[in-house]
């Protein structure tokens, strides 16, 4: 409170006609988001708005940079055994939680124990089940023993839900969260705002540069954009893709649209008719040109893809040609599969996910000539878990980018994958083999060859219709400096300043 008032007086006295409204506290960044976080314990966070908070208040063992490189965070260095089954992380010394207590190895192991306990029911548990045993020979060393070789273990330590929290204050994480991050939790009013203040004892000396951050919760996008244009907020997180071009024309704003690994797809159920027949799945993939889908659904802000691996990834199979729409060939395949008069089918789209709704309408229209007579059915996204996921024959869904190629593909495409059974029930021996091989090799070239083989097998026997890797765009006031639009859709605001 005093912080706000001091900032207000300061800015008003110094520069009464400054471009930024005098009502805004100096050096407090106001970030417009859409939803109220429902969890403050990072282990239970599941939505993008919460992930922003995770990365401001907490630290993981490693950090993912905006160029997707993995760099030290709480761990200043790490080593791994030849067989990739033992990983040793050396913690930075003198890192203090926001309450002043020093972070030690026991906090790390306690957090992972809690995560791996099935009774905790943490949503991201399945990503870490390879951890078989943990030990901490001293206060600054954590050793993970894995049940199988896993080359991307340091990468997944940067993920959203594995932030290190104080082991003795787990009970208060849900209401008064305490972390080690550059900003400290101050207050949260659901539906209004979350207020974070600078952590003066942050372990990187001199950072952060801001006095604080406010997450302003404004559900209606047009209101957020109006607020940005008026200077009432400084950043709009995740602007709609149709706004990228019009907002770029505003000289007061900077719009950044970056490629991500987040994808949307038309999910097909591979064990029930009609999509248990690979010819029907292939027919759909040649009935629709993914380039048209990108233009119509994303206003061009995305790229067609064949699997969750985005075309920007070095592991993307560049040799696979995305087919042009061929309605005649699609009809022929459908006829071979026993649908000579085309296929009448219902496509479920999630209400409240405008891009995915638009994808449904786009496919409804574009797949018509290829013999797919689609009726769109809108279903609230909240009932997806209970009624749609893994059950409906044909629906639209999508996932955020994950930190490694393995986490982005294995659980979705392997016949034993945890997400696979909640999506398409896909099973292809060649895909399984390639995914297993890629996971266990330590050799980057071999890994790449495995993932390319996986994409080729998947392309020949598609599990559904991967539409695109979607871009992610944010709009900034020009006075916001040193913030990069992070493809993982969170923010690193340590160096951010307001000019």
């Amino acid at each position, binding site marked *: 409170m005093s912080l706000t008032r001091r900032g207000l007086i300061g800015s008003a006295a110094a520069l009464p006609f400054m471009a930024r409204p005098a009502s805004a506290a100096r050096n407090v960044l106001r970030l417009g988001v859409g939803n109220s976080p429902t969890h403050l314990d990072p282990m239970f966070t599941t939505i993008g708005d919460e992930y922003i908070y995770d990365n401001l208040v907490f630290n993981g063992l490693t950090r993912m940079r905006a160029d997707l490189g993995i760099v030290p965070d709480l761990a200043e260095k790490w080593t791994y055994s030849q067989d990739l089954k033992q990983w040793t992380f050396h913690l930075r010394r003198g890192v203090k939680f926001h309450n002043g207590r020093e972070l030690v190895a026991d906090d790390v192991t306690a957090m992972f124990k809690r995560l791996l306990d099935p009774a905790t029911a943490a949503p991201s548990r399945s990503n870490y089940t390879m951890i078989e045993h943990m030990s901490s020979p001293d206060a600054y060393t954590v050793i993970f023993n894995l049940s199988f070789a896993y080359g991307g273990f340091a990468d997944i330590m940067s993920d959203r839900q594995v932030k290190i929290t104080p082991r003795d204050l787990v009970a208060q994480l849900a209401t008064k969260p305490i972390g080690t991050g550059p900003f400290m939790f101050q207050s949260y009013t659901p539906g209004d705002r979350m207020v974070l203040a600078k952590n003066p004892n942050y372990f990187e000396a001199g950072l952060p540069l801001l006095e604080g951050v406010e997450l302003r919760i404004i559900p209606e996008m047009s209101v957020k954009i*109006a607020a940005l244009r008026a200077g009432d907020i400084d950043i709009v997180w995740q602007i*709609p893709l149709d706004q990228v071009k019009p907002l770029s024309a505003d000289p007061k704003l900077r719009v950044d649209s970056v490629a991500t690994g987040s994808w949307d797809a038309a999910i097909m159920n591979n064990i029930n008719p009609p999509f248990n027949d690979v010819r029907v799945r292939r027919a759909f993939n040649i009935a629709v040109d993914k380039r048209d889908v990108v233009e119509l659904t994303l206003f061009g802000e995305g790229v067609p893809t064949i699997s969750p691996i985005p075309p920007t990834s070095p592991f993307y199979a560049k040799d696979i040609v995305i087919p042009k729409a061929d309605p005649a060939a699609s009809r022929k395949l459908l006829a071979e599969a026993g649908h000579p008069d085309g296929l009448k089918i219902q496509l479920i789209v999630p209400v409240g996910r*405008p891009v995915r709704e*638009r994808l449904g309408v786009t496919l409804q*229209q574009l797949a018509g000539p290829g013999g797919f007579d689609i009726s769109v059915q809108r279903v609230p996204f909240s009932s997806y878990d209970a009624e749609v996921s893994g059950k409906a024959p044909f629906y639209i869904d999508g996932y955020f980018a994950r930190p490694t190629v393995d986490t982005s593909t294995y659980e979705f495409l392997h016949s034993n994958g945890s997400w696979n059974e909640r999506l398409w029930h896909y099973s292809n021996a060649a895909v399984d083999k390639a995914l297993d091989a890629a996971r266990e090799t330590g050799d980057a070239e071999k890994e790449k060859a495995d993932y390319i083989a996986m994409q080729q097998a998947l392309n020949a026997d598609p599990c559904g219709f991967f539409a695109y890797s979607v871009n992610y765009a944010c709009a900034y006031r020009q006075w916001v400096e040193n913030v990069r639009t992070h493809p993982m859709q969170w923010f690193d605001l340590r160096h951010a300043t307001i000019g």
Partner: protein
Amino acid sequence: MSGAALGQWRGSRALRIGGCVVAAIIALAVISPWFAPYSAVAFDVRLRFAPPSAAHFFGTDEFGRDVFSRVLVGARYSLAMGFGAMAISVIAGVPLGLLAAFHRGFAEAAIMRAVDLLISLPPILLGLLILAVTPPNLWKTIVAVGIVYIPILTRLTRSVALGLLEEDFVQAARARGEGAVSILAREILPNAWPPIIVESGLRVTFAILLGSSLSFLGLGPQPPSSEWGLMIAESRQFIDRAPWMGLAPGLSLCALLIAVNLFGEGLRERLDPRLSGRGRA
């Protein structure tokens, strides 16, 4: 000009204007499949978010679809919801009301308490409740809205019938030994019609509005259909760059509601015995 004659004249003017507009909208809805300048569902990538022009009177939407054609084609949904729902509430509500009036006692208590229960729920909640349990479509929306307005017609019919049951001609019919069905159908119903018609005429407005509201919430016709409530819902995300996408169906809805209301008001002035002097019976 006497007061009564003035009322008659104004009543018929409201009736005429409202009737003409409603008839015009119905006619447009019927001929729209042939008359609409463009397909209501076909995309045109080059023309996305085009503002209103001579080629596209109401502009185009995020897929380059012609909003004017979509509004024309969408009129049928609103009309079907308004009039269809009202037909359902009349068909179900009027017999229930007659029954309650004639069989005082258990039947009346059961019907009227059920009606009280339904009325105590806000219409939009009741509609949501009916639609939430099953996948939505146009017919379910019509039935849901119809059910929402059954109680009002039941109450009205009952109160009218209760008054009529005391009338001499009904007593005479009873004295002649006529059965319940005969009395209700031949004596009560013909005399109860005017207030029922007036009430349903006015309620059509609410039914259209409720139908569009449910559809706005996603519980109505499904995309890519161009129901007006759905169009308004879809236009929301583009309101600052393409306001015509929401304005066109919104103003059309407004025009339809005013016209139906005028028509209903005209009917009331024409048929209400208190306004046009003691009429029948």
